[in-house]
């Protein structure tokens, strides 16, 4: 199919000089000078970009120098259709009514020289199907594009802006992190272990998530991944696997040694230390019987454990698989030195600090052996801010990156100033 463009003038930007559509070889009623180069082109080294394929993109750059209206025309010309066999209409005729004019009217602006092939684009008579490729932006690789240009004007501000934004943020983070005092607000009590490879591959996979999710068949027939802590004495272990088996089971108690010699125990909250999703979705006790013990019937405790899983806590909401200490332990640490949340010390009132200054004593019920593998245990008390616990790293990193960026900006500015004019283009001819 050959689409023939109606010879309407452009309704939007009636061109001052309208190039005829006929190729140069055809006789034209218009003066040939009309479709010669327009003055703006003349500054370019080549008469027409299309003569040199490589310059088509250069030409795109050249758009910048065009007056805005010509830029628009240019773009329209590009989007105009596949066949320009019709002669142009009357020059600058009255604009046709707005949007009703088909896009094809833009063909009016088609510079005959835009086509390299020269000959009449439409076969005489218009019967033969033209195999001329579609003139779409996509197919002609002329998609509108954003071209991030790395010139001094764009790069240097970026560096300075990054510097100016990052340094304050870094300082803010750093100060926030440093201001975390150990005794104000809700205090978090952690236990820490070193040299403990909770991230060992065989350790990490040694668990059965179905079992932990309360699946009754997995409860009695745990996954093979749990080996060698899958069955003990012919009974399935619940919870199975090396992770559960190695659960941290020291008991930490904190006492304030006040003026009177009786140590006052600090209330440590066991609940609220695990992710809500873990506690309520991921971990579930198996279904069935009234008592937790009944639900775990037919299973045995992990080898290292002192008591079975249904006796982890007296609170039924914190017992069995949904025991929060257990849940926290089951979320394996990424590094061999890690800390895990153990207890919460809630602030009682706004008037008193959570942990007032004074002497404290920590009572550890030692169940958990670490000396075999040269491990270390720690207890950490910390409050947290809007951005987590005390950790100066992020703040320092921000300050560092911001400073580097700013410094680079200055260096680049100097370099640019010094070397800008020594362009080495002498050997390039266009």
């Amino acid at each position, binding site marked *: 199919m050959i689409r023939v463009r109606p010879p309407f003038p452009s309704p939007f930007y009636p061109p001052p000089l309208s190039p005829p559509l006929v190729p140069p070889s055809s006789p034209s009623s218009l003066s040939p000078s009309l479709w010669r180069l327009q003055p703006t082109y*003349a*500054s370019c*080294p080549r008469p027409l970009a299309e003569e040199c*394929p*490589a310059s088509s993109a*250069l030409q795109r*750059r*050249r758009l910048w120098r065009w007056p805005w209206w010509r830029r628009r025309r240019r773009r329209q010309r590009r989007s105009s259709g596949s066949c320009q066999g019709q002669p142009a209409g009357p020059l600058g005729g009255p604009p046709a009514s707005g949007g009703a004019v088909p896009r094809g009217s833009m063909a009016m602006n088609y510079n005959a020289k835009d086509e*390299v*092939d020269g*000959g*009449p684009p439409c076969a005489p008579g218009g019967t033969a199907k033209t*195999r*001329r490729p579609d003139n779409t932006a996509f*197919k*002609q*690789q002329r*998609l*509108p*594009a*954003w*071209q*991030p240009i*790395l010139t001094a004007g764009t790069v240097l501000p970026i560096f300075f802006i990054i510097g100016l934004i990052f340094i304050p943020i870094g300082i803010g983070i750093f100060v926030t992190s440093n201001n975390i005092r150990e005794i104000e607000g809700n205090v978090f009590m952690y236990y820490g272990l070193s040299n*403990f*490879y909770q*991230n*060992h*591959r065989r350790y990490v996979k040694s668990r059965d*998530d*179905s079992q932990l*999710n309360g*699946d009754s068949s997995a409860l009695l027939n745990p*996954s*093979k991944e749990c080996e060698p802590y899958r069955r003990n004495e012919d009974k399935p272990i619940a919870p199975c696997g*090396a992770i559960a*088996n190695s659960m941290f089971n020291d008991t930490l108690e904190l006492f304030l040694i006040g003026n009177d010699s009786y140590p006052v125990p600090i209330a440590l909250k066991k609940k609220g230390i695990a*992710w*809500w*999703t*873990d506690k309520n*979705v*991921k971990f579930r006790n198996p279904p069935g019987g009234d008592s937790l013990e009944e639900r775990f019937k037919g299973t045995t405790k992990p080898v290292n454990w002192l008591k079975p899983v249904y006796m982890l806590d007296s609170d039924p909401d914190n017992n069995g698989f949904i025991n929060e200490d257990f849940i926290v332990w089951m979320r394996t640490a990424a590094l*061999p030195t890690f800390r895990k949340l153990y207890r919460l010390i809630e602030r009682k009132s706004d008037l008193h600090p959570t942990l007032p200054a004074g002497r404290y004593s920590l009572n550890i019920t030692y169940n958990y052996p670490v000396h*075999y*593998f040269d491990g270390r245990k720690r207890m950490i008390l910390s409050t947290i801010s809007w*951005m*987590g616990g005390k*950790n100066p790293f*992020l703040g320092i990193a*921000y300050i560092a990156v911001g400073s580097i960026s700013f410094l680079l900006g200055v260096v*680049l500015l100097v370099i*640019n100033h010094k*070397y*800008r004019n020594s*362009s*080495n*283009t002498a050997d*390039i001819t*266009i």
Partner: protein
Amino acid sequence: MNIEHERYLQANNKEFNSIFVYPNNTIKTSKYSVFNFLPLNLFEQFQRLANAYFLILLFLQLIPQISSLTWYTTMTPLMVVLSITAVKDAIDDLKRHQSDDRVNNLPVLLLVNGKMKEDKWMNVQVGDIIKLENNQPVTADILLLSSSEPYSLTYIETADLDGETNLKVKQAISVTSDMEDHLELLSAFNGEVRCEAPNNKLDRFSGILTYKGKNYFLDHDKLLLRGCIIRNTDWCYGLVIYTGPDTKLMQNSGKSTFKRTQIDHLMNVLVLWIFLGLGIICFVLAVGHGIWQNKKGYHFQIFLPWEKYVSSSAVSAILIFWSYFIILNTMVPISLYVSVEIIRLGNSLYINWDRKMFYAPRNTPAQARTTTLNEELGQVKYVFSDKTGTLTQNIMIFNKCSINGKLYGDTYDKDGQRVTVSEKEKVDFSYNKLADPKFSFYDKTLVEAVKKGDHWVHLFFRSLSLCHTVMSEEKVEGMLVYQAQSPDEGALVTAARNFGFVFRSRTSETVILVEMGKTRVYQLLTILDFNNVRKRMSVIVRTPEDRIMLFCKGADTIICELLHPSCSSLCDVTMEHLDDYASEGLRTLMVAYRELDEAFFQDWSKRHNEACLSLENRESRLSSIYEEVEKDLMLLGVTAIEDKLQDGVPETIIILNKAKIRLWVLTGDKQETAVNIAYSCNLFEDEMDEVFIVEGRDDETIRKELRTARNKMKPESLLDSDPINIYLTTKPKLPFEIPEEVANGNYGLIINGYSLAYALEGNLELELLRTACMCKGVICCRMTPLQKAQVVELMKRYKKVVTLAIGDGANDVSMIKAAHIGVGISGQEGVQAMLNSDFAFSQFQYLQRLLLVHGRWSYNRMCKFLSYFFYKNFTFTLVHFWYAFFNGFSAQTVYETWFITCYNLVYTSLPVLGMSLFDQIVLKTTYWTMISHVIIWGSLGFYFCMSFLLYSDGLCLAFPDVFQFLGVVRNALNQPQMLLSIILSVVLCMLPVIGYQFLKPLFWPISVDKVFDRIQECRRLPRQSPVRTKLKHSSTRRSAYAFSHKHGFGALITSGQTMKSRMSKKNTLFSKR
């Protein structure tokens, strides 16, 4: 399995023919069937290194002791990659199946038991007689028995076979053509055919038909090949000789040689290096694990006991080696090959879609016939170009002539100045009703001479209108259309026609001319046809006045030696004219005649007939017979034909030169013609320091010539101290590479085919190469097709550069195939070259866009793609190496399995692909189109969506063992540290890149940067318009005539000996409606 040496068959005898078990006419181009598709396709796919690697990985992962990743992390990408390829293959094959089916089920009229019966193509057997009608494709290779046309001529179009669109004529032998369409005769026909076994030679066939006890010689003029189309012939009957896979068409559709690009090679090398790197990394980690196991793991057994089968840390280390082998598999890019194919396909489509490479007059867009070579286009260093039809249009225009020592064709104004074309006035040919309106001539004196009745001028044009093998067609009264074997001939006959010597029609025995309005019938006695050795053709005719005349035309060098001594003075004058013509780049041809004595002719004719009938040495006997009569010729004159350059050729060559792409012209033409064209298309310039000519006839001379040339260009290259000479004396083993040498100026080299034959041998080939490569332009003339390929091969062998061969004719096929990239010009000479090419378009000037835009972009895109691709895989994978030091080298992954599964295939494939399809490098900037944005942000968004989906409650609860990371995304993204860290990492990663990109053009500029600066400079300071390059060259150079490299119709025209009853048809012969 015995190989068929000779084919033996009998017409209409199924029992007899079935002894030989010839295949039926079914063709099968498809590769797979429903049953063997899966195994065969998978087998083919697993031959790829990467695919096989992943299959092995899959098996490794199934071993629980070492499986560090679940099986689906490898399985999913592998399945996707395999299925994409399989689907593509299946679709391709389905298309082939469909076209096979369509072709096999076409109807054909088969002679069965004395009646014509319609049957399917696939049921046609050897020995069957079939009937073909006008415009039908030929079913199989058949022996023409009879046709509706006089003399049992049959016209065919062979476009599918050799791409030539002009009609060809085939003729049946008389004994069979007598059967015409009498079915009873045809059914009773029991001729036996002995012929050669199936082969792929399109222009050769020999066989013997034995019928009624007599033997008849069969050649390829009697064979209609499958793939041709019957034209202008109402019906014809044929005996099936070759069927299905035996047909010449199918025999020719052999496997095309598969060209690989350097990037392909690089990719394979990279993959191998990656394998090696992978092995080293795994080994290091395994050692690390062993040590860790000894120092820490052993003691950690309280919480993590060793497996039972692990007796020592060494065993554990061995297992870990394989575990890491699995984990680090993402270093080997599984989707690399698929991605590369997609990118290449995309870039090929851009070439097909490019309007700037569309040639409207012929309605042909550019065509990337091979989709695997795009990026190679950007690296082309040497272009080997044919001349005729590639640089030139191969459109011949009768421009000038010299008749009996008088020049015609130039027009002068009153002052005796030559008039340029635009000011000239066309000669009025209105006195001649049969003139071709498109023909233009400007010199009125020639027309006046014709009108005056100048004897020599008349004889000259009579000779032109008689001595040729052109066929004429007169569909409408007075509208003659000539079918010429070569454009030169067409131009000459057309010229004669316009001046009033109209060649109107011919039969096998007569040529009908309309001489100045009067119809005259010449008896055509013999055609002494053209061939490459003779470089001339002659006809012997009996004029209406009963004189026997021989008219001859041919190359001047040949004809001069055949002239009668009496015309030596005329010859001298004419030679001067020849020089003039040559200096203008015109193709010249000498015309001569001789009157023959009746008795001499009768005697000669007898011997000629004998030679014609001889089966052995027919060619050589004929040519010696020809020589007997082609002597003592009387010179008539010289014709000059203009060989027009294609549009934009000089400009293109200038630009290619600027891009440091060297152009070598390899042509079969004469040296003078080629040099002329070289000057006119800017390959050589007048300002060149020197143009060396190598035309030695033996080794030593050629070596001396080459060395003298090199001594001028770079004297130090002849010294023993030259590094290349030192290198060569060490006698390095092949393949070695000759480095680039730079000459001290602009030089050109011309070498002819004869010298080249020596130069391409032994030590001389290095001399040749080194000398030629220092020159700006090289012209090799008088080249055979094989030599063209040899030159390309030579370059490929010693210079590790990418070569491109461009040509349009069948003689360029070998070089097109030999070069890294073959470009076919779909031009006048048919499409043989195009069919063998990797890229095809119709104008030489598009080469510029192909190389400098598409090639450059493709190359840059591919390189960026590879960098990007390896970068993203490496960063992704090497994290595991780092992490190994923290997890006891236990092959624990940092990422969870689904992320690993999706990373290559889903999250990161589109940005990479997008960049490699839309990036444009002309500016030094990245080119972000809308699509790029959609892809990049889309991929990011998609990642987050996928993460939320994969970690969602529903999915994790449904498959708690597969999706273990319930709620992780929610909890992690809730934390401000996480978001702050992401921002920090992104900025930290971008800063050095931006800084480097900014500094690079200042300190380490590459040419693109310089160009960019230059553009800006130009924009600031407008330059004056460039000086027009001078295109015409005025100094005197010799040119010569060149025939096209084909045999004429001559033998066919004269061999029509059969007299038919339908005499009425005789007059309309060759002027079919």
